[in-house]
């Protein structure tokens, strides 16, 4: 079997799964089902990363998001009141017709833009500084590591400080009641 077409088939399957799962995620009534569909989406994305020769990012994606979504499910169980029958969506009452129209309009515009871009522009892109052969010869993890802790050290540190601030904020809010 031709290798390129094989990869192409896998890509199409993964992409379709990702799209279908994200639609299902947005439309489920039960928040836990939504969270689980999100995991399916992330797995499909991980497959796409694998096809792009980014093994480390694929694995990190699964590792980080699977744990994060479990926390999300826990929060859903602890905080969200789930109605029994499934009828009478609580979010429906507070939402006015105006916001619905605005939302639909923005979606249509964005979709149109995407279609336009996909149809009228050549999407080949230039070859980057890190082609597949070079990354494979050095090692995937090593390439990411040396870039992240070398060239992009400053943005990396800023991002980690941002996360730290988030943690401190969460602790402060949790402790305030005492």
């Amino acid at each position: 079997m031709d290798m390129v077409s094989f990869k192409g088939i896998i890509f199409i399957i993964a992409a379709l799964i990702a799209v279908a799962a994200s639609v299902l995620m947005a439309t489920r009534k039960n928040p836990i089902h939504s969270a689980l569909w999100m995991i399916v989406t992330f797995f499909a994305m991980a497959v796409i990363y694998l096809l792009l020769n980014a093994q480390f990012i694929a694995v990190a994606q699964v590792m980080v998001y699977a744990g994060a979504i479990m926390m999300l499910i826990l929060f859903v169980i602890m905080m969200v009141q789930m109605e029994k029958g499934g009828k009478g969506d609580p979010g429906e009452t507070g939402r006015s017709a105006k916001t619905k129209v605005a939302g639909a309009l923005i979606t249509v515009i964005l979709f149109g833009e995407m279609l336009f871009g996909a149809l009228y522009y050549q999407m080949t892109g230039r070859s980057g500084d890190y082609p597949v052969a070079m990354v494979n010869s050095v090692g995937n993890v090593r390439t990411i590591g040396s870039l992240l802790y070398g060239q992009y050290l400053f943005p990396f540190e800023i991002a980690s400080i941002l996360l730290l601030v988030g943690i401190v904020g969460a602790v402060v809010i949790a402790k305030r009641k005492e």
Partner: protein
Amino acid sequence: MEQIVSMIGWKTAKTIAGLVGVLIFVVFNALILTWAERKVAGHMQRRIGPKEVGPYGLIQPIADALKLLGKEILTPRAVDRPLYFLAPILIFVPVLVSFIVIPFDASLQVKDINVGILVILAFSSLSVLSILMAGWGSNNKYALIGAIRSVAQNIAYEIPLLLALLPVIMMTNSFSLKAIVEAQKGLWFVFYQPLAFCIYFIASVAETNRTPFDLPEAESELVAGYHTEYSGMRFALFFLAEYTNIFIVSAIAVTFFLGGYQGPFLPGIIWFLLKSYLLVFVIMWLRWTFPRVRFDQLLNISWKALIPLAFINLLLTGGLLKL
């Protein structure tokens, strides 16, 4: 046979053969371990354990499997059906993926992936997810409490587990399990990293939900924890996954700290299995020695003792490597 091999290519054929071998091993391993656990438990309590079915009771696990197969599979009416049905199947995905990258011998490995250990760790979080699905899907308060405990426990212990494995990765400069084993030709890493080994072992016992960290399925409080509502073969699948997980964490410990398949005289696979089952025995030994910890103790051990120690160990290793 040769025609098939030439058609799909040698590499694919090897992978398929490996996967079949893994499946057989998983079942065989679980059968042996259920028998061994009861024997170990028996002898530690000055009993004999199973002895009626076959010599030394060796056929007992097969009798148990037949019994479980024959049982009626009950489905409670109010379960969340898709989650309830998927959970026992999904719990097997991480188990099978882990076996793909574990090197049983120098040439006995389904596939050597250059991010091998990360693959295992990433997919192991999927098993917690299926526990959560089982707990939520069962629509039972004991199952849900068990599942929530399991998530809290796994998130707390995944951090020291990772941090304990990192020094070894720093010393070998590789995530590939085979490269890590090959780097232990001289001296096993347990002698360089005794603290990391202890931290890894404690954390892995907690990750597999074994006593003294078996709060997700604490029989005396939660009936059976997350698998309370499962019966027959579905229950057996959870059971099978638990025993396979015990073997996997032991196998990773052997690969990272105890020289993997390396050893004198005997072939590599024998050494690998010997060392792994020795650690499995230690885990069983722990079960019949220690009482269950309290939930606050469980989390304190991880966050206040194991994680800081693992960080100090990591810093020291990094410092010494750079000197």
